Each structure stands twice: as C-alpha cells, then as structure tokens.
C-alpha cells in the first residue's frame, strides 16, 4: 500500500486528505509515482469525472506500472512527463486558460503536491480549495535556510545540503511560498558533531 500516516506535528506542517470527486465542469489532476493509485480510486468513485479531466502524470521510479491503467480511464486529456520541472510550462498554460470552477486534485509525493499547489495558488485558487492526498515516498523537498538552496528528495535526517554542504536537520517547518520544508544546520555550535543519519519516519 502506498499510503502513510504522518504523525501529528506543528501547525506549519501540511496535512493531506483523501481525494473526493467535487462539482465542477473541469478537473485537473496532477500526480507522481504511486499518486496514480489515488486517481484510479477517484475515477472509480465517480466515473463521469474522467470525461472532463486533464491528468498530468509524472511516473518517476514507478516507470510504466500505472500508465496503461490511467490511459484506460480515458480522461479528456492525459499527459505523461519525465519530471515535474518538464511539466511546469504545460501546467502554467492550463492554469492561465482555466476559469473559476476548476477543481484541482494533487496526489503523490510532498514535493510534487507542494510545487503544484504553489502554481495553483499563484494562479488564484485558495490553497484551502485544493485537494491533496499523499501517496508513495515520504521524501521531502528541503530548503537550506543558510544558502537557500533546494535539495530534492531528502529521505534522511540529518542530510548534507547539496549546495553549500552544511549538515542539515530536517524540520517540519514548511513554507508554502517556497513549497519546501526548512533545513537548519545541526552542528553550528559544535562543528563535526553530527548524529548518525536515519531514514525519515523510521
């Protein structure tokens, strides 16, 4: 199963729900990897949704495990892309042309949901009106608060900043503006005293 129950944390930490069909004439679903499962379940809950849905899917490490199943849903439009970054121009164009009433569904990893959420809120959709469902990896998109560099897919705590090389502690403190969690130097006062790295949520 691709779901994970995040333990309760600080208010800043995003929480995720379960995608539900909503009223609307146009539906935009953005998913990566195991997020496809949430879309399959959504389509099952309301088969009429697919005729008015645009699905953007980034399979990542799941390869073609889900693509045929998504195709079989016969959505109005299906895009399968190599990376989120590659999908951004298309996403921006969709949002630019979209009208009020558009329903946005985000599912998959936190990094994908956070970044797509940022695009959707920038386009004018209130963040509380966007549905999310976490699926798959619990890796995070982290910002080093010292050099401001972003490290994607962080799965261990502490980790080394991919930009400045500091040893960073993974915080639950999240920025919607950056679509990233904050990472803070763990050995600032006693350089070199770094606890062993452990995988997140183990």
């Amino acid at each position: 199963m691709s779901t994970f129950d995040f333990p309760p944390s600080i208010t800043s930490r995003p929480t995720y729900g379960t995608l539900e069909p909503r009223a609307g004439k146009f539906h935009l679903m953005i998913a990566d990897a195991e997020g496809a499962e949430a879309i399959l379940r959504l389509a099952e809950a309301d088969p009429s949704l697919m005729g008015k849905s645009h699905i953007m899917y980034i399979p990542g490490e799941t390869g073609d495990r889900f693509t045929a199943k998504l195709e079989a849903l016969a959505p109005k439009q299906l895009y399968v892309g190599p990376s989120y970054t590659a999908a951004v121009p298309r996403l921006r164009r969709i949002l630019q042309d979209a009208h009020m009433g558009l329903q946005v569904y985000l599912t998959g990893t936190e990094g994908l949901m956070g970044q797509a959420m940022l695009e959707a809120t920038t386009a004018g959709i209130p963040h509380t009106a966007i549905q999310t469902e976490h699926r798959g990896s619990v890796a995070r998109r982290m910002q080093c608060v010292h050099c401001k560099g972003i490290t994607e897919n962080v799965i261990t705590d502490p980790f080394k900043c991919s930009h400045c090389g500091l040893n960073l502690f993974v915080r639950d403190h999240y920025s919607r503006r950056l679509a990233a969690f904050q990472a803070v130097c763990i050995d600032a006062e006693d350089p070199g005293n770094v606890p062993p790295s452990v995988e997140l949520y183990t």
Partner: protein
Amino acid sequence: MSAGTTKLAVTVTEVTPVNELVTRFRFERTDGGLLPTFSGGAHTVVEMKDGDITRLNPYSLMSDPMDQSAYTISVRRDDEGRGGSLFMHQKVKPGDQMVISYPVNLFALDLRAKKHLMIAGGIGITPFLAQIKQLAATNGRFELHYACRNPALGSYVDELTAAHPNNVHVYFDDQKQAIDLENLLDGQPLGTHIYVCGPKGMIDWVCAKARDLGWPREAIHYEEFLAPQSGKPFEVKLAVSNKVITVGEHQSLLEAIEAAGVDAPYLCRGGACGQCETAVIGYDGKFLHHDHWLEDDEKASGKKIMPCVSRFEGKTLVLDR
C-alpha cells in the same frame, strides 16, 4: 459604553433625494475634524433618537473610503419596516446632529483576488459604490452586474455607467432583463472572487449557483443586513444584571436589553457578525432564530441566541446577560 465601536458625533450636511424610494445623507464631523478612512464594504451604525425610542441601524458607507471630509449613506424607505428608514426620510434634516459608529467592515474586498465580480440587487448597490472607488484608485479589476426594478428606481445607475462604461452592466426587471448567471460565472478567470449584496433570494441564488459550479467557498462573499423583525412582545429575565424586561412588538431583543441600561455587545445589528451572541440559561417556549451566524445545530440546541435579530415566543427566557 463599551458595546459597539467608538462613536462619532456628526452633523447632517446634505439630505438628497436620489429617487422615489432612496435618499442620500451626508455626515460631517461636528467638531470639524477628519473622519477615519475605511475600506470599501464597511458600514456605520446610525443612532436614531425618535422620541423615547432609540434605534441603531447599520448602513453601508458609499462614499470614497479615502475621503475623510464626509461619509455618505443611502437609505431606502421601507414603509412596512420598524420605522428606522421612515425616521431617516421624514425627520432627519440638514443641520441635525447625530451619532454614528466608527466604520466596521464585514464585507471587505479580498485583495488577493485577481478580479472582483460584484453582483448587486436594488439598494444592495451601496457597499459596491465605496468598493468601486477603492478599486478605481488602485487600478483594481472589477465587473459590476447590477439588477434593479426600472430606470427610475435604479439608484446611481447613470453615475456608475458614466464613470465605468466597460465594467458596469445594468439589468432592469421591468424590461425583463436578467443576469445570465451560469454563463457569467463560467467565464470568470481563475482568481476571481464574487461579492453579492441584495435581497436574500438573490444572495441564495448566486451562492448556490457558484457552489454548484465548483467555486471555492473562500471566493464567495455576501452581505445581507437583516432588519430585526417585529413580533409578539415577550418577557426576558437577564440573570447577570438581575432584571426582567419586556421586548416590545417593534423592538429587537438587543434594543430592549439596551433600553434597560444593560451594556450588551454588538457590531452589525444584522445577524451577521456574531458579536452579540448570548448564552441562554433557561427557557420554556420557542426560539425564532433569524440570524445567519449560528449553525443549525446551535439554533436547535436552545443554548444560544443572537438578540439583534432573533426573538422568542413562550413563557420564560433567561439570558446570561
């Protein structure tokens, strides 16, 4: 008195009939000073001393929010109402001194919106007059759809269409013109917020249609001032101040509490803001809830009442006030 907001002593400097039903009033500070600026959509509570009766009615401010020299309001005459609008129309003359409250805004523009879509019905146009002045000053993007009965009763139609010919759309009921709501809502770009002010039927129609079309709750704003309804007189015991009061036929429960010298909180006096929420200690009878603040289960619980608009029928009512 701590209830409500700070008061302003003002002088009526102009009384201008707008049409058969609507009259505009201009207030300037009696001490000659500047009035506070406000934000479009704000209202002021006007105190009307009519013989022994004091009425406090909220009216939307329609003047330019940045104009500190004067406030203006427009009052529609309601011959069937409790008398507040008739008092304004018949008794208030230029030179009169009155007391109004500081502006309070329960219908503000959400400035995160990329576009403001305003839908007005009849006298519901007044908050939009101030909002449009605010937006015009900041180059805000807006569109007004204004339904009124006929050209003669269309308050400020000419002024609006002259100033904003491309943004203002007027619909006259008598000419069978109606807002094509579904198409209007469907065509709005992402980031549009809706604002509705007008009769209850119109507000419900717009809100329901927007919800059906998948508009986010956060993008739908409405303002409906409920005038307190008249009803059978009833008796209330105020437990904290240890008083028994009678609420008259044309008096609201809040007004009766105030008339007894009890300092009760309020802000909008129209069942919207929640400020006057009062705990019920005991009752034997039936509540007539008229507000849209309390949730249905709270209304059914018999534990809370909004004294600004709601009433009671029955033997006893004891309030925590």
